[in-house]
């Protein structure tokens, strides 16, 4: 579904990704771990189409087509969803408006009928109930004044409504209390299907206890140092990243 081949990217004059390759197939759940500043969010933002990052070489293909030439909204409509590490507060833009506009943008792209306000509210309330979110969040500004955990839940709500084919969740588990973590994990698990792929960027084994990954990758200094199965995450928890770095340079 997603093929990243020898990707180099920088911001300004600073290189951040240094020959990163990663292959993700439908039906798989990948976890990406790695030290602070190693480039995990950069990778996620590049896949979503952030214009500040310049790809200097390498390719990214999605469902067989070049991804890097697409506008962010085209990527979204083609089924890519990024759960932001730091969801943006947008005062004055109504959360319900955004959710409905987002759902309909995807539907129009797929040639489906738009959902009307009534139908939309019904679905949104259902999903919110599953996530343990108060419906009043629909009427607030997007992430406006939301607590850290509420923002993360709101990201998952968006994901649940958009039903993406490729979901990249950038530290969606950070800052969540234990109930929220479970709710978020359930949200992720309910999306798991043979047609979809999920990428979890995380620092903690905790989330992986609830959402079992098929693959775990360690990203360091802009490239994948090591890949393995879920046992790699446990090993990391034990031994830290130095162990991977040493093993890689050995």
């Amino acid at each position, binding site marked *: 579904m997603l093929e990243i081949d020898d990707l180099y990217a920088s911001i300004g004059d600073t290189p951040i990704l240094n020959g990163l390759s990663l292959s993700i197939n439908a039906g798989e759940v990948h976890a990406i771990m790695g030290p602070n500043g190693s480039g995990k969010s950069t990778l996620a933002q590049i896949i*979503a*189409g*952030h*214009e500040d990052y310049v790809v200097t070489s390498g390719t990214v293909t999605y469902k067989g087509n070049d991804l890097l030439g697409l*506008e*962010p*909204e085209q*990527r*979204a*409509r083609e089924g890519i*969803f*990024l759960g*932001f590490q730091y*969801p*943006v507060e*947008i*005062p*004055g*833009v109504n959360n319900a*408006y*955004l959710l409905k*506009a*987002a759902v309909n*943008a*995807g539907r129009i*792209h797929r040639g489906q009928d738009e959902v009307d306000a009534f139908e939309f509210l019904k679905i949104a309330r259902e999903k919110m109930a599953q996530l343990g979110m108060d419906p009043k969040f629909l009427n607030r*500004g*997007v992430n406006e004044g939301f607590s850290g955990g509420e923002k993360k839940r709101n990201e998952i709500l*968006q994901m649940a409504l*958009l039903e993406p084919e490729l979901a990249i969740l950038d530290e969606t588990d950070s800052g969540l209390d234990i109930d929220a973590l479970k709710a978020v994990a359930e949200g992720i698990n309910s999306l798991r299907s043979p047609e979809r792929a999920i990428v979890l960027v995380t620092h903690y084994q905790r989330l992986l206890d609830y959402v079992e990954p098929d693959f775990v990758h360690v990203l360091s200094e802009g490239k994948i140092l090591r890949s393995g199965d879920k046992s790699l995450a446990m090993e990391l928890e034990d031994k830290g990243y130095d162990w991977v770095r040493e093993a890689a340079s050995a």
Partner: protein
Amino acid sequence: MTAPALSSEALADAVENLPRSALSATRQAALAQFLERGFPTTRLEDWKYTDLGTIVDISRRWLENGAPVPASAAMDDQIAEVRSSIDADWLVLANGRIMDGALDAAIPGITIKALSELPQGPNFERPLADLNAALLSDGLHISIGPGAEQERPLGFLIIDSAESDPGVSQIRIEIDVAADAQAQLIEYHTSTGNAGHYSNSVIACTLAEGASAEYVRVQNRDLKHSQTQRTSMRLAARSVLRYCGFDLGGQLIRNDLDIDIAGSEADASINGLYVAGDGQHIDNHVRVDHRTGPARSAQEYRGILGGRCRCVWNGKAIVHKGADGTDAKQANHNLLLTEGAEIDAKPELEIYADDVKCSHGTTVGQLDEAALFYLRTRGLDRKEATRALTRAFGASIVSRLPIASMSESLAAMVESRLRGLANGELS
């Protein structure tokens, strides 16, 4: 630019050809003053950023054509459209003429007269009020009595058409709101036609003691048409004004809003939104005179600017000697969508009293790129995301609309203007 002259003979003829009435004497005096003063020029501090060249040009061509008044029949559709979208008792002023029926409208508690019926002629002291009084065919005088219970707002529909030849029209409306009376008033300016048009409005409104007025002004002219307007509001003791003004259309627009806080415990909220795109120039000058205290005034204007355009905001608060206990706030915020959009924002405070609370702030910003990206990652294209963010920026003014019954139609008008801005004028 030098004082632009119109042919004095042609002007005198235009004045001469107006229907004779009790206004004739004032017209001659006002004409004499205008011939001496002319149009305000950019050499005047208050007019520094606004060159009236376009307006002078239209006026000249209109005079050369013999100062015609086009028939108003062509506007029936537009009039009907406004009537159906905003619920109000409408008095229609078409091409500067009071339309049939306006003077006979029977609204309980409200008296409507022609200015020509009044013993005193209209005042023409302020800039362009002389041109207005000289060329005025007639105006409206509205008294809102203490017992007035408006079922719906009273609306002034100011509409002009300039189909093939340039047009000029003068509007004059005086409104007195009696002690303790409550008024809901709407001014709606619109226009049609491909030729140039210049409308010059002078509005004077007084609120007697304890009176309150909810006042909405919407300027939604064709983008080829221009307007100057002076609105004077006088607030007696304990009176309350809730004012909201919207400039959505027009090519060259200059609004002067003068608020006179004449009585203690008067309270004025003044809000405005201007949306300007390619080729537009919108200038808002708001002056609040606090003559006595304690009293409060709070103004906030917001601007959304795209394409190549220029806007001006000048907010002046003068706290006169003895106006102790004044609380005056001024704010102006601007969202610039393009490099070609320009704003000159200037707050001015003059304080001659003690114990006053005054604040002012202006901001000029661009679209929040992080927010734009976030919305786009959800599938909204750049235009839709831009519209969502600009709508949000204007929402704090729109949400203060004092006349709730028109909020839906107003939101739709703002939306349609923002759509135009996001679609064609972002380059």
